[in-house]
């Protein structure tokens, strides 16, 4: 059984709320990814955590882009490490909730708000 643990600091909050960081200790096995860790949190700790992804592991849908330690990455291809990792939503996109931002092309949005 695995004894590796990552400490994920995740930016939580919706527009109009004061954002905060929540910390989660996430067990993992070598090779597992940040997206695996976020899915683990949703199943075992807090299902209200919002993340966007579709293809899970294939890096085909390109929907799970977030900031990890200040760098823009795909959560599904970034490996978990035995360290503190800071996870934030994309800074240049409109925040929807937690790690989810508005990334749809403007003409594919319900509001067509540009």
């Amino acid at each position, binding site marked *: 059984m695995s004894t590796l643990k990552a400490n994920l600091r995740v930016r939580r909050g*919706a*527009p109009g709320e004061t954002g905060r960081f929540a910390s989660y200790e996430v067990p993992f*096995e*070598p*090779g*597992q*990814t940040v997206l695996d860790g976020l899915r683990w949190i*949703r*199943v*075992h700790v807090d*299902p*209200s*955590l*919002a*993340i966007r*992804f*579709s*293809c*899970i*592991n*294939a*890096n*085909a*849908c*390109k*929907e799970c882009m977030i900031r990890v330690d200040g760098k823009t990455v*795909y959560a*599904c*291809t970034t*490996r978990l490490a035995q360290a503190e990792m800071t996870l934030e939503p994309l800074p240049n996109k409109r925040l*929807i*909730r*937690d790690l*989810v931002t*508005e*990334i*749809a*092309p403007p*003409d*594919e*949005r*319900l509001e067509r708000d540009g």
Partner: protein
Amino acid sequence: MLQADVLVIGSGAAGMYAAIAAARAGAKVLLVDRSLIGRGGATVMAQMTVAVAVGEEEPDHWEHHLADTLKAGRGLCDQELSQLLCEQGPACIREMDEWGIGWARRDGHLAQVHAPGHDRKRCVYVDFLNTGPAVSKTLRARVQRIPEVHRVGDLIVTELAMRDGACIGAHAVHVSTGASVPIAAKATVVATGGLTRLYARNSASVNMGGDGYALALRAGAELVDMEFVQFFPIGHLAPRLVGMDPIMWDPFRYKLGGRLLNSEMKEFLPEGGRYLSARDLATYAILEEVGAGRGSPHGGAWLSFQHCSEAALRDAFGPVIDRLAANGIDLTREPVEVAPIAHYHMGGVRVDTGMRTSVPHLFAAGEAVGGANGANRLSGNAITEAFTFGRRAGERAAALAARTAVPGKHIHTDIQREIDFNPAAEIASLQALMKTYVGPLRTRAGLEKALAHIDALAPHCAELGAPRPGLDAEWIDLHDLRNMRLVAECVARAALAREESRGAHQRADFPETGDAWQKHQTIRLAGERVHVES
């Protein structure tokens, strides 16, 4: 209120092709997806082959493709649907070629490879492992250019809207705001894909929880062949790979053969290093080795390409070899572990060759449709099915819409409910249960155990209610759990009723294939109850 002549739910290959075909036939189309348009779903994840009798590599005819499809289907194909797939396939492949997909070519003609179950080289593809992304990109670019197709992503359809027994559109929820969005449509196409998310190990995206089956069933439509879930035999198992689809070894085997080995490093299928075995047979052979204590360390089989040189690997898969190296895998030095993985669903919404369901003004297309592939799907038929059925559904839905009046407005009011359990955790338990008891090998005792759990879950997700304002992740999980539970019940009940083994449905307690069972089972909702007609 959104309004359209034709509403298309789901934007994989079937949905986008339906939207294009409907617009071409003069309809105003609304194309919606719970994810981003043309990015979620299964299409974007397809790795390689598309079966089609274009006869460029060697002479071929759609009748040969049909014969192979029927043979793979183990006597259970709906022949008219299979014929539509095989006969119309070439036209769609050519159309995709005109739209610039970039099918792989050799000496000026389309390159075609020989896939298991086919009598000749029949499968076109886009290099390298890029067929799905190229299909999605090509169709996305196409729909973007058609002003008559209005695209809206992040929209979850929660129910079809019904009046006097006919479909008049849908009720949807906008994911990022939680807003209720009624949609009025003269004709509706369900193109939401399959149900492989029901299983703990799958090659699906999170959108593949059987939404379309649940929507159609609750609207009064019939489902067919729900017990036939295809397990892809050589899904990647270990070591952990990231940024790669678990079905990636399929194209490797097409091009390079490869040897499937047990723990004694012996081939256990009569392949001689070639890729020959049908999916159902390979799946059971691997499970048999594991059951006999000859599995690989993680409970699968070894797949070896150690006979290939570095140059041969690079020639066949170019940049993919670097992605493997980044994952610490050198195929010239070591084998990988593979095991069966839920991959595709042969069953689905019952339609006629016009893609009409039993509910007036409701159509289905793509993997959401049941019947064309019988009890076991031939390699390469899924994308062809998406193209041909999508195109047919779009054309027929547009034709019906042209002689239908605009349906009046409908409203749908839901109140918020407290969710007093963790729906994400319940989804994970349901997936584990389905993998254990409703997987490739089934027994009465196991299926009954699964159904007891599925029944006990029913009160938790009887009602969906409205989400809280903003993105409500728990509500989305509850929505998914509600649909997955209903569809899981359909699969398990149909599997329990079918007391024989055939294709993807194998009963340890009924190992023989019975002539009396060469028939479809259909499912309807009778009130809240799932009713199987054998």
